[in-house]
């Protein structure tokens, strides 16, 4: 049940990574190699072992008080400076549906 180019295209669409030229073929080959390499992990799906999502020992309930932290706030210039496109005080994106060609 190797991944097909169609499968990989679907993942790329989801992950918003356009694959161009022979990238699709290369990516498909890589993905299948990588998945093969990961095969041994399937043996570890053991019913009596709990997964460790957080390697932090027993640390839990980490919270902060509901207090304003104005020091970390960004000025409007600092917020927008790195943006590729902005208008007035807003970040700007092109048409979401785009020239009638729905994505």
């Amino acid at each position, binding site marked *: 049940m190797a991944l097909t180019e169609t499968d*990989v295209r679907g993942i790329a669409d989801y992950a918003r990574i356009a694959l161009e030229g022979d990238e699709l073929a290369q990516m498909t080959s890589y993905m299948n190699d990588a998945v093969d*390499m990961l095969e041994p*992990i399937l043996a*570890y799906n053991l019913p009596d072992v709990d*997964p460790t999502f957080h390697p*932090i020992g027993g640390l839990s309930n*980490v919270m902060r008080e509901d207090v304003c932290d104005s020091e970390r706030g960004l000025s409007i210039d600092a917020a927008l400076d790195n943006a590729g496109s902005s208008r007035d005080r807003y970040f700007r994106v092109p048409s*979401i*549906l785009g020239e009638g060609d729905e994505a």
Partner: protein
Amino acid sequence: MANIDTLSARQIASAVASGELSALEVAQAALDAVEAREGEVQAFLQVTPELALAAADRVDAARAAGEALPPLAGVPVAVKDNMNLVGTRTTCASRMLESYESPYTATCVQRMLDAGCVPVGKTNMDEFAFGSSTDTSAFHPTNNPWNTSCVPGGSSGGSAAAVAAGEVPLALGSDTGGSIRQPAALCGVVGMKPTYGAVSRYGVVAFGSSLDQVGPFGRTVEDVALAMDALVTGGHDRCDSTSQEVAPVFAQHLDASIEGRRVGIIPSFMEAEGLSPEVRSAVESAAKALEAAGAELVEVDLPHLDAAIAAYYVIGPAEAFSNLARFDGVRYGYQEPNCRNLADQSSLSRAHGFGAEAKRRQMLGAYLLSSGIYDKYYYAAQKARTLITADYAAAYEKVDVIIMPASPQVAFEHGAISDPTQMYLSDMYTISINIAGNGGMTVPVGLGTDSGMPVAAQLVAPAFKDERLITFGAALERAFASDGAPIMGVAPAFSGKGGELA
């Protein structure tokens, strides 16, 4: 007078504190060394003379005003380019962030600055820290100071090379699967990945959030201990939920005795396919040196270690996909021009902003997290993590630290490993420590008998017992060098190039 590259961080700090050297002289010498050596090493993506000289001025002004100087006042430091520092770009060696100006400063960097360090620049790395060679940097490769046709390792290759070439005495790196310890081994410097949570990750561009940890490079164990003290001073970072309180007492453990303490050896690791004979004999000689210093060698078994690489390449890409999803060209980062709609803008910005390995990891991660796949792979990987962590815990019932290789081989030539899945195996000795979350440190022990390139041993310790790494690392240093000098020192081809202290 002396060259800046002959001085350790501790020596510089004490010379600045005593007035023997001004911070400005030190900063200028460091910048001079960088200038003279960068052409061949290419360790930096950005050199920051203005920041360095301004920081040095502040140190000198504080001293002139009679203020007490912080512990690393005047010590030049280089920072991996995935760490935010206001006044610098933070590019992660990616086109995606080529012109990204840091809007804030990472906690780890701020703590080095608070300790008096002088920031010299941002170092090269594998793009977004995906790699073990620094060759995947979008801008240029970095050369190994011991042989410039070889890689420095990665992903923190720029930081390791900058220290090995004598450009700076200290550098910060980050380690997700060995990205501090492997380049330290390949460049012949000391590199430490503390326990997950010991150092704040706030402001460090995330790769694998449950694996990433920041740590220092230095030429001596003492310098690494001093840097660790700086990084944990201030305790828990309120900006990082996973950071924990660690006492800044690493330097106090340099001289502790290892007499009667136990050092574990994992036989299967020493016999693993892919381990080069010269690295193996280097690790064996390091173990014998510890034995000669009074420690007892004990064989330990970690039965689930074989799952570590697969677990890592499930967890790492899954978290990387998630962490890198934010790079869509809207708020920051490369934005593809002239797109007719948002979906095209995102897909093309990401396609053209990211390099091949960054795209591969994200694609793999997006697949591994998808419905029906996630529960097979991700759960299995996190269960393997439970077992590997338990293996280490059981081993530490018997021993204080474990010694093992850091990298299976010495530095390889640029381009020698082209297959990405082959490259993944160069992390075979470092990955399990990130999976378990405990700390590890690379200590160089000399030059390989076959290659003449640096060889090293890796020490690993239980979670939040990172001071043992300092103790046993210092013991190794005493065994392989004399009088507190570094084991390896600056790579000979670069020693003394520029950097004269006036």
